[in-house]
């Protein structure tokens, strides 16, 4: 053996081996090589520090530590990685449908998800951070928040932690961490629990938030592939191993100010194998988590009750408001007529989703205007549907023959009495069919309140289905519940209409 080799220190030897490994590409399964790309699913909404567009540098395109990670992975795998937008809570479904090949989005291997997908070795270790509003005092940890509202990202490790370890805390589910923090700042919620990287990345947006206690726990981000993609998981595991060994991961994490000493443990065999499935296991029906049907029914029933309450209340307001607007438009003084026209055009011409977000988050950012979520939901639906109702009533009021009004006036009734006792009752009968239609539409549209954290029937279904993967069974069940509620209503309206027809025939 030449002396020169003998003198090589061990560390240099290791470096040489690692360097060789760094040069060698990981063997990607052939189908992905042929496809020429690997599509990774992630949600860029409120996505810092994972994947997001920096408002200060919109030209830079999407940035984030996972964007860097995906690029590094692509170099290891020999194909470019392209991101596919998907809602955070639907990542598993998007993966299952084949719309992406791998989930890479701060995705935690929660017990609920483990039977549904195949997880890679962890690529990041993190902790949880509790933050509270500036006016909250006497809170030193989650233990002090019993009975209080705490915002979490739906289907996240934070959500799971609250559910399992702090059942007395009311977990309020958000689809974005930004809105979860917003509701702490405006006082709707006592606090928000989030992954530390999220807490750190979003802190500049919410300088008034206060972190409570030290970060705690140990949690992992893993990538996820379809159950049948064992070979892709293997390739990704290998690629992560190489990025770890050649220092790329550390470089990326340091760049994003996310490197903590705990990351050194990513290389431990025990950590690497933590969420690895038995590789022989393909997707099996038996893998779906067992469902506690009693609890499922209870949750769906609670959701249905809320949907019913929200729909009935908001429609009652919409009918009264819509009628007032229609009457103002037809009989009001000119300025109010213009206001009524403007109301209808604005509310009909803008998406209800935007109106709902404005009402809840927009208005919520003004001091003293923090409507509770359910109130904002009812109000949002009522204000929007009032515009449609107003148009229905305007048409019906205009359709009442002039002679009816003249006959009432000739008897000496005042204008208001004429409307109240003669014109409006007839117009309401005339508009019954259209109004019933509108109510059934509102009934289904009421699911939109889920964007402002209200857990009604559709949201409950969404959460249950995401947790169990039983989309079909639960979907049919949920549809059945909707039908059970809307069919009797349609039937009652039809009977009422027929009774009126008998009088009028």
């Amino acid at each position, binding site marked *: 053996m030449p002396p020169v080799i003998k003198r090589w220190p061990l560390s240099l030897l290791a470096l040489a081996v690692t360097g060789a490994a760094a040069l060698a590409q990981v063997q990607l399964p052939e189908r992905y090589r042929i496809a020429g790309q690997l599509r990774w699913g992630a949600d860029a909404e409120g996505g810092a520090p994972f994947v997001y567009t920096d408002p200060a540098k919109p030209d830079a395109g999407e940035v984030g530590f996972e964007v860097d990670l995906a690029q590094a992975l692509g170099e290891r795998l020999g194909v470019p990685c392209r991101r596919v937008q998907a809602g955070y809570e639907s990542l598993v479904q998007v993966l299952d449908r084949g719309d992406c090949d791998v989930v890479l989005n701060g995705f935690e291997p929660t017990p609920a998800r483990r039977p549904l997908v195949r997880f890679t070795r962890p690529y990041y270790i993190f902790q949880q951070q509790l933050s509270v509003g500036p006016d909250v005092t006497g809170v030193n940890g989650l233990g002090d928040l019993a009975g209080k509202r705490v915002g979490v990202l739906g289907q996240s490790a934070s959500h799971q932690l609250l559910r399992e370890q702090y059942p007395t805390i009311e977990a309020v589910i958000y689809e974005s961490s930004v809105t979860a923090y917003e509701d702490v700042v405006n006082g709707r919620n006592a606090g928000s629990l989030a992954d530390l990287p999220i807490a750190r990345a979003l802190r500049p947006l919410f300088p008034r938030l206060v972190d409570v206690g030290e970060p705690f726990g140990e949690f992992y981000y893993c990538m996820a592939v379809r159950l049948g993609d064992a070979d892709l998981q293997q390739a990704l595991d290998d690629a992560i191993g190489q990025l770890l060994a050649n220092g790329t991961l550390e470089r990326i994490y340091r760049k994003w100010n996310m490197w903590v000493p705990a990351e050194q443990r990513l290389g431990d065999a025990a950590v690497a194998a933590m969420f690895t499935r038995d590789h022989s296991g393909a997707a099996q029906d038996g893998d779906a988590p067992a469902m506690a049907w009693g609890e499922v029914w209870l949750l769906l029933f609670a959701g249905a009750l809320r949907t019913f309450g929200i729909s009935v209340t908001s429609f009652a307001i919409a009918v009264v408001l819509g009628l007032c607007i229609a009457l103002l438009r037809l009989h009001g003084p000119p300025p109010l007529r213009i206001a009524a026209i403007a109301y209808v055009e604005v509310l009909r011409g803008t998406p209800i989703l935007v109106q709902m977000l404005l009402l809840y988050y927009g208005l919520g950012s003004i001091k003293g205007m923090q409507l509770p979520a359910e109130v904002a939901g009812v109000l949002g639906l009522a204000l929007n549907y009032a515009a449609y109702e107003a148009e229905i009533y305007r048409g019906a009021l205009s359709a009442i*023959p002039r*002679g*009816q009004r*003249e*006959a*009432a*006036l*000739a*008897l*000496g*009734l*005042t204008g208001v*009495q004429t409307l109240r*006792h*003669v014109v409006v*009752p*007839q117009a309401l*009968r005339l508009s019954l069919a259209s109004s019933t239609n509108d109510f059934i539409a509102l009934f289904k549209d009421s699911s939109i309140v889920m964007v402002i954290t209200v857990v009604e029937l559709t949201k409950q279904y969404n959460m249950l289905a995401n947790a169990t993967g039983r989309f079909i069974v639960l979907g049919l069940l949920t549809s059945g519940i909707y039908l059970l509620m809307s069919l009797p209503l349609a039937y009652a309206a039809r009977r009422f209409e027929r009774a009126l027809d008998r*009088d*009028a*025939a």
Partner: protein
Amino acid sequence: MITLRGVTKRYGGRTLFERLDVQFAPGRTTVITGRSGSGKSTLLRLCNQLERHDEGTVALDALTIPAGLPHAEWHRRATALRRRTGMVFQGYHLFPHLSVRDNVTLAPRLLHGLAPDAAAARAQQVLDLVGMAAAADRFPARLSGGESQRVAIARALAMEPEVLLLDEPTSALDPLSTADVVAVIRSLRARGITQVMVTHNPELAQSLADHLIEMPVR
């Protein structure tokens, strides 16, 4: 007594009548006839201010409505005038969502503050007068034209008007129904109720009129 003094009515650029002086004698039946477009219905509608006049004064005894009143004041006086006059339309204009009884009692309940019992009694009385007492619970859609017009007369009578205005009350009716309605008008005339009727039917005019007004063709 309804009096029109120097009343002018214009429609668009056209003058229907100019500086007209008419009064309708109490307890008598006055019939206004004339060709289509002569303004006879408009004249009747001026009497309860469903149309406004351009000049002159419309009066019911001391209640005067000169032309050109501000809207609020005109509205107040017109409503007062309408509460003392009854009107029957060619097309009946019964309220389809109310039963015959409720059609008849709506105005007395709202305007005279009649209790339900008293209102029902008054309905019974006026429906008896027009021979429609048995139909009190029916809805207008279930009535023939002649029945509808008789209910419309009962509805106007329920307010105990000082004058009953009838605008072509039989024009939309078949001969049999016409006979029923004419019989009612005749019985009201016999009871001394002041009536002003517009018709384009000369025979009807002749047979019912205590006093006949023929609108000139302009």
